[in-house]
């Protein structure tokens, strides 16, 4: 309010407080009309549209137009590698085939397995790390920065290098695991074993993105005011009790924010998995985006894959909607 009132005053001088409040609210959104009229040059309305229009036009051209095109293609049997063949309208049959196809559900299961375990591990490790860093030991800022490095790197380029670490004989990962467990390195086929491959991608994703969850959780922990802990101390609440009744509930919106972000990102995961396993062995790590790529750019079933893309998009959009609601709640705290 302190910030809003001065400009509100220039609009209304002698009025009741309720009008003043409303004016202040309006002033929060726009420059007062009395001033706007006196400004030389383009009107504010013009400036607003000139400033916003290019972004909207670009997004319409690069995002919305292709999306509409994809919706249209999803009702056809179009194949991008045979552009001269007649395009037949086949109605909803692409959609019904996807939703009844067992392969789709296998891909969805692989995606769910990947999303569930990455989020669980990243949240547990990320929150624990944030909690430890919040002890504010000496040098915690430096170590935090070091921990953050993996998440800034290219998942494709670093994921590719993990193939080397996972090599059964010469790879560092299998060597270290075999060193500590005694299992011979030749048995640690991280990328070619049906049981281990889904975990291979989970390990790399967790390594990369735990810092992300940690950073958001850390912000959550730091947002808890000291006086709440002081009051709890006065009430002789145990540390255990403080954690469950203060720390966790107050950091929860932040944890949820991190979970949703990771959920959306991992639901559309492509690059790292494509390079590590390419969906294999068989289709054990074939997450949704990999299926989509195979259908669209290897089998060239453009119409079919467009329908699949629309289904995925609707799913992600649903998640995004939830995300924005949570985001607003976090912001209003």
């Amino acid at each position, binding site marked *: 309010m302190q910030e809003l009132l001065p400009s509100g005053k220039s609009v209304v001088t002698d009025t009741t407080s309720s009008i003043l409040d409303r004016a202040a609210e309006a002033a929060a959104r*726009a420059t007062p009309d009395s001033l706007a009229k*006196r400004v*030389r*040059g*383009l009107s504010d309305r013009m*400036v*607003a549209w000139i*400033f*916003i229009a290019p972004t*909207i036009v*670009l*997004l319409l051209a*690069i*995002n919305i137009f*292709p999306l509409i*095109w*994809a919706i249209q*293609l999803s009702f056809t049997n179009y194949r*991008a590698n045979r552009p001269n063949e007649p395009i037949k309208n086949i109605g909803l049959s692409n959609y019904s085939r996807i939703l009844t196809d067992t392969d789709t559900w296998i891909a969805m299961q692989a995606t769910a397995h990947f999303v569930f375990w990455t989020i669980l591990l990243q949240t547990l490790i990320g929150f624990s*790390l944030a909690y*430890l*860093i919040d*002890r504010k*030991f000496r040098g*915690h800022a430096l*170590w935090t*920065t*070091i921990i*953050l*490095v993996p998440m*800034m*790197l*290219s998942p494709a*380029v670093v994921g*590719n*290098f*993990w193939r080397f670490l996972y090599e059964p004989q*010469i790879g*560092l990962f299998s060597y270290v695991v075999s060193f500590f467990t005694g299992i011979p390195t030749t048995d640690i086929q991280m990328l070619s074993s049906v049981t281990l491959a889904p975990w291979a991608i989970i390990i790399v994703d967790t*390594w990369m993105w735990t810092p992300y969850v940690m*950073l*958001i959780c850390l*912000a959550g922990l*730091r947002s808890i005011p000291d006086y709440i802990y*002081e009051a709890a101390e006065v009430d002789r609440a145990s540390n255990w009790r403080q954690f469950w009744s203060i720390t966790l509930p107050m950091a929860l919106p932040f944890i949820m*924010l991190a979970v949703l*972000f990771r959920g959306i990102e991992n*639901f*559309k995961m492509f*690059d790292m998995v494509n*390079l590590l396993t390419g969906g294999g062995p068989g289709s054990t790590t074939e997450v*949704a*985006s990999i299926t*989509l790529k195979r259908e669209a750019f290897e089998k060239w079933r453009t119409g079919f894959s467009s329908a699949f*893309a629309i289904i995925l998009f609707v799913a992600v959009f649903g*998640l*995004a909607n939830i995300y924005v609601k949570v*985001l607003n709640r*976090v*912001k209003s705290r």
Partner: protein
Amino acid sequence: MSAAAHSVVEPSTTSKRVAAALVIVYALISMIPLFWIFATSFKTPPDSIAYPPKLVFTPSVEGYCNLFTTRTRQTPEYISSLPPATNFCDEVTRKRNMVIAGPSNFLPRFVNSLIIAFGSTFCAVFLGTLAAYGFSRFRVPLADDLLFFILSTRFMPPIAVAIPIYLMYRELGLSDTALGMILLYTAVNVSLAVWLLKGFIDEIPREYEEAAMIDGYTRLQAFRKVVLPQATTGIAATAIFCLIFAWNEYAFASLLTSGTAQTAPPFIPTIIGEGGQDWPAVAAGTTVFLVPILVFTILLRKQLLRGITFGAVRK
């Protein structure tokens, strides 16, 4: 317990020590893969595939030589007939019974990455700054819906977007061009730029520009001379985030570029030597590719949280 005597919220020394130890152990373990990339880039091919993995080795720049060159196998007689090697790379290559045939594609791909990343970042930040100012300062009809629309484009799975973009670019002749990639990355990044910059511009008191306009500035002059200088930090942070995204991007690049406009991420995994992947060369390429990001991460560390949450969490 004793800590409670002086300050109730300050953690005890023991708990600090335990926390520090655990965090440092995690940090060191998480650095091992990166350390290994760096170490491998200085190994010779035989050292890189030795069993057990070699921790101590004689450093060599052979990986970097192989990264930047293509080589052909020759007979020892042919090699001994050549004039003496003039540089280190020649020498290393000849020891493996090969001669350097020419430069590899790494440098052009790296340059593509630079052009596309910087080009798209410039466009995204330019458009984003204008739009963010518009949303921050004016009554825009349906502002919340438009902002949500802008953000939602970021949630589309890249492969889903790539299908129609692939068809559209084929029609427009933008397939495998730097311009096409710049346009695409600008569209993806502009959502981030608008959301981040709106947050930064919201924090600049509007009284500054209003005072300037009362003094006779036009709205555009006030924007240029008052708001932009105030928003420099925010713009710089946003630019680095856009740059990192465009630099790291793989999905679009691997599907929409194949030759002339290919960037480094889809290229590096394809570096092969004789008998499979040339890991020292891959590691060298990865190292060269990652160093700029490391620098940026250190520059950005104060703004990181804000960037990764689209401005939802500020510190």
